[in-house]
């Protein structure tokens, strides 16, 4: 390799790139895992089916060509059919495109001005239907209305189903999950962010499992809250509130004795479709399972500060779900709710059950630390140490570091 090429490569490696911060990474990770649970990996059998299908499609194509050649010419049908039903006034400035992707179709309604209502039925895997503005993207199933002024999102109102909004406010990207009956305005959230004080650092204690007095700025501020969340107007109060991705666990650099709030972990987003019929389009929506219903109810209660009731609902979700990953998460959050409710003994039992039944859960490390803290607070430092040590091998470096910080904070073993 010549010096020129080396120099060019060296210079190229200094080019900055879009490095995601922890919250953004966690949001993508959570979204990815949710999508993966809804998507089965392809199998050899499917490949054979695909190959067989390919031969069949080839034969059909040949037959179709023969028919076209010998038959009179007719208007061609559209290759890609749009999923979205759009209802917009003549004054609205929008553009509707459908393009092919590797997985299906990507349907984009680009809105620059006006109030546009769109109804989206459930689409097959790989297909996407999105509304876009210069600063935001909305994707959902059901019916929702978007108001746009000067190419900026002013408001999103979901009347049926659910929608996910990704918006950039003051240079920060936010993710908002809305369900039927909710309205969201980015400007109000921006004001709230400016007024919200940052959460102070705290010394490690069992209070770590208690709800924070104020939400941290960032993605968390964009969460739809059951009733008390600024920026989200509940047109119809509902328990169908989507949960946000996991809160990050950070390790304080200044003091090893300070440990992150591992029990503030929150579940990945779960979309909750509506069950009523659509006015604009007959979109089919899926009825949530009992596990999902209990989980959402429990989550909403937890957010509302009703820890006792949340623990009951989350326990019901865990019992109803069997080996469902959502049930596993429910078990973990049941323990969090019990800690918040002050029932440490029951929380210990639930955490042990969780750790025993979920050997591959991504929340193992957090659960081990939470259990260790409970044991430490009631004086069982030997057991606490063992759990902290087990969390030191967590795949998430932040969790492992938090476990180490807890170990360092403990008195040395005799």
């Amino acid at each position, binding site marked *: 390799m010549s010096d020129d090429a080396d120099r*060019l*490569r060296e210079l190229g490696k200094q*080019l900055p790139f879009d490095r995601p911060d922890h919250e953004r990474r966690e949001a993508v990770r959570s979204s990815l895992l949710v*999508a993966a649970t809804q998507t089965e990996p392809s199998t050899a059998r499917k490949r054979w089916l695909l190959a067989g299908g390919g031969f069949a499609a080839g034969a059909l194509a040949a037959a179709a060509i023969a028919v076209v050649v010998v038959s009179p010419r007719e208007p061609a049908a559209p290759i890609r059919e749009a999923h979205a039903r759009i209802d917009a006034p003549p004054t609205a400035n929008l553009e509707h495109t459908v*393009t092919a992707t590797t997985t299906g179709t990507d349907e984009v309604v680009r809105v620059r001005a006006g109030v546009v209502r769109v109804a989206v039925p459930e689409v097959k895997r790989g297909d996407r239907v999105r509304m876009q503005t210069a600063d935001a993207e909305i994707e959902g199933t059901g019916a929702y209305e978007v108001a746009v002024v000067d190419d900026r999102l002013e408001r999103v109102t979901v009347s049926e189903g659910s929608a996910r909004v990704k918006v950039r406010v003051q240079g920060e990207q936010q993710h908002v999950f809305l369900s039927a009956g909710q309205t969201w305005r980015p400007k109000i959230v921006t004001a709230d962010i400016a007024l919200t004080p940052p959460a102070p650092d705290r010394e490690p204690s069992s209070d770590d499992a208690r709800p924070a007095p104020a939400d941290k700025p960032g993605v968390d501020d964009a969460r739809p809250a059951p009733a008390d969340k600024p920026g989200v107007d509940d047109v119809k109060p509902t328990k169908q509130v989507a949960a946000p991705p996991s809160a990050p666990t950070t390790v304080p650099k200044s003091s090893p004795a300070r440990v992150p709030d591992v029990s503030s972990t929150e579940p990945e987003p779960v979309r909750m479709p509506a069950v009523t019929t659509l006015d604009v389009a007959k979109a089919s929506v899926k009825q949530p399972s009992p596990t999902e219903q209990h989980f959402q109810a429990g989550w909403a209660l937890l957010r509302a500060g009703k820890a006792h009731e949340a623990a009951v609902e989350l326990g019901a979700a865990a019992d109803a779900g069997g080996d469902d990953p959502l049930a596993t998460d429910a078990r973990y959050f049941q323990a969090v709710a019990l800690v918040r409710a002050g029932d440490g003994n029951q929380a210990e039992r639930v955490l042990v059950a969780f750790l025993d039944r979920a050997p591959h859960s*991504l929340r193992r490390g957090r659960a081990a630390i939470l259990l260790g803290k409970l044991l430490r607070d009631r004086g069982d430092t030997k057991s606490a140490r063992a759990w902290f040590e*087990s969390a030191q091998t967590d*795949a998430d470096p932040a969790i492992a570091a938090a476990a180490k910080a807890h170990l360092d904070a403990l008195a040395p073993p005799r």
Partner: protein
Amino acid sequence: MVPLRRLDERLAGLAEISDEALLAACGVGDSAALGALFDRYHEAVYRLVSRLIRSESYEIDDLVQTTFLEAWRAAKKYSARGSVKSFLFGIAANTVRHYVRSAKRRRDAYADWPAPLPGGSPDEAAQRAQELKRLAAALEELPHDLRTAYVLCDLEELPGVEAARVLGIRAGTLWRRLHEARRALREAIDPTGGAR
């Protein structure tokens, strides 16, 4: 109440599992393996994608997520002829290519990129900043195929044979693209030819 040893062993095992084993676990539907794979390679994929296409952060997020989701779907097709990283990079490159072709969108050419941390004297730092700016602009102007070859081979240091395979092109074609990309970028950095 003390954890059993087997739990520690499981955790340690998950941390030490090979890339190939993680991908194989993805193939049988183990989403924890997908999470571990994401943890290992998300930064590399972010770096690759954001250098292949200049776009909004949420679009980069989408492309990265699509890459890992495609890897999840295609995990059983992984032949182990190349590394898992190459496998992921191939999917990412193709995902971006499809996106560029279908969307036909372009952003301001690196105008809002933050300036790199300067080093050395102020004059040297200023010169390097200028070169980086020119390089970034030139990279943006490169045809997508040439940019992909340069980013994969020179910046991500993927072996040429693997890069050609994951892109579905012949090795000779890759080298030609890489040569053209380097020449264009060298000219952009130093139009007077001083860098040659």
